[in-house]
């Protein structure tokens, strides 16, 4: 009898491992989804550079997260700030108190790290140089993502690890903040130093329409991401249990509602400006927002999250355009604003709203405070370190490509153009004297 139950436990463990590995594969598929989405939304001349940056993202994440990032994020806590072992996965399989999924846990988390990185490439596309982008990817995988990840998820591998945000009760089930907002706030830091694409704004500051290369291709990217999200959220249980079905259902509902609401909101209240981009972005916004709590929401509350995400996405999109923050693929409204929304809306879960059938006012306020703290810490960390990183890059290897390269399309190895203008020096001096 005992042998039989032991066999059943082992079988359950194997099924959990298979499920998490399948989920990791689905999250990896999101890299292809991001590639299609971003290539579809930028201009044709930049598609090669955008696609190659996506490849670089994954390659960098695979190596840097393996050697340093995973250890900093999930290793044994040191001074309450970072992990201090598991570098290069040393002893990962032999540690007794670690997560039994071992390397499969690493593969799943690696796919998440890759997602955080690739958000930045889309937002800053069409004008960022290849070398600075490569360096930025390394630093995000090495420092920015794992350190905040340790604060919020540091107890996922070693259950007794200190993880100060998680210990306060911060809930971010699959990474509305940990993955998506981190990527978005780093992007925001980069964009604030980079400036808009040439030709993006009129003289009066009003935006000029920049035509996306291929909206159907972007829609294909959306579908790949949407499928990947089933693994992103469904796999975050780290076990194949009865909650997986509801998590995937809630995820799907929020994405669908976000898409519909963003579409009609744009049609009715925003003069259909960028309606296709907003339809796609609204779906992604709903998916990002539900990511913080699909395990404790109901289908109804998931719908509420999707509705609000659709509206927040559209207003966020227009707000950035107005502020001349030129996010080429609309990544910040999706991953930043909807990430914040979803992290705060954790509190609309019936599990938090009610205790023994009665409305738990203090419980809701406390949880909302903890969620807001997590959101603020994430912004403060990712934005400030991102700003410092991009500023340093700008002053050293450079950040923005030349106007010629921006016009003709960014390449991995840009040609340095000779000055081709014939200048009448006498006239130049005369003009400058009047300056």
């Amino acid at each position, binding site marked *: 009898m005992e042998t039989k139950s032991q066999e059943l436990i082992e079988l359950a463990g194997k099924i959990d491992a298979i499920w998490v590995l399948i989920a990791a594969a689905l999250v990896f598929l999101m890299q292809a989804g991001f590639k299609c989405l971003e290539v579809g939304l930028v201009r044709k001349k930049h598609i090669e550079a955008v696609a190659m940056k996506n490849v670089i993202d994954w390659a960098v994440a695979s190596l840097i997260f393996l050697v340093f990032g995973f250890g900093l994020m999930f290793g044994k806590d040191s001074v309450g700030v970072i992990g201090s072992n598991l570098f290069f996965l040393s002893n990962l399989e032999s540690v007794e108190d670690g997560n039994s999924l071992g390397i499969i846990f690493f593969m799943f988390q690696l796919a998440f790290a890759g997602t955080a990185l690739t958000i930045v490439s889309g937002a800053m596309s069409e004008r960022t140089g290849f070398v600075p982008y490569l360096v930025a990817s390394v630093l995000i995988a090495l420092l920015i993502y794992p350190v905040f990840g340790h604060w919020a998820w540091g107890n996922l591998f070693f259950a007794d690890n200190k993880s100060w945000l998680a210990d306060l009760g911060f809930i971010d089930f699959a990474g509305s903040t940990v993955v998506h907002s981190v990527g978005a706030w780093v992007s925001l830091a980069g964009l604030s130093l980079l400036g808009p694409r*040439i030709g993006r704004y*009129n003289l009066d500051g009003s935006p000029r329409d920049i035509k996306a290369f291929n909206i159907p291709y972007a829609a294909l990217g959306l579908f790949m991401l949407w499928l990947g999200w089933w693994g992103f959220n469904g796999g975050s249980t780290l076990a194949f249990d009865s909650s997986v079905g509801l998590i995937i259902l809630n995820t799907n509902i929020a994405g669908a509602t976000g898409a519909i609401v963003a579409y009609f909101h744009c049609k009715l209240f925003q003069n259909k400006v960028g309606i296709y981009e907003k339809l796609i972005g609204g779906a992604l916004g709903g998916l990002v927002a539900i990511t913080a709590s699909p395990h404790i929401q109901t289908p109804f509350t998931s719908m509420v999250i999707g509705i609000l995400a659709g509206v927040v996405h559209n207003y966020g999109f227009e707000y950035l355009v107005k502020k001349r923050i030129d996010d080429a693929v609309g990544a910040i409204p999706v991953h930043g604003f909807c990430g914040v929304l979803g992290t705060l809306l954790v509190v609309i879960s019936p599990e938090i709203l009610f205790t023994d059938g009665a409305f738990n006012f203090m419980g809701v306020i406390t949880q909302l405070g903890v969620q807001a703290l997590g959101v603020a810490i994430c912004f403060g960390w990712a934005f400030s370190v991102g700003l410092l990183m991009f500023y340093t890059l700008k002053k050293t290897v450079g950040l923005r*490509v030349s*106007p010629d390269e921006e*016009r003709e399309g960014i390449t991995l190895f840009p040609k340095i153009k000779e000055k081709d203008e014939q*200048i009448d020096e006498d006239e130049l001096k005369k003009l*400058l004297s009047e300056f």
Partner: protein
Amino acid sequence: MVENINIAQVSICSSETNFDLVTLHQFLKIPSLKRNELIMQQKVEFIDIEGGKINLMDGLRAITSLIKKLREEGSYSDYIKNQ
């Protein structure tokens, strides 16, 4: 006023590998000595609203006439401060 000259942005080559993009107004706020040095070294490119390149001399002529007009109206310092 600025509409007449059609310069939407100015690209400044700040190093061999970095280019800064500023508005015309931000460009005019650069101290004239530094600005002239950048122009003499051809590190400046004027860009129209569609993102196209404006010939350096054409851009300079347009800016000079803009500055002249603003000075005649006595509104140059307001333009620099307020925009």
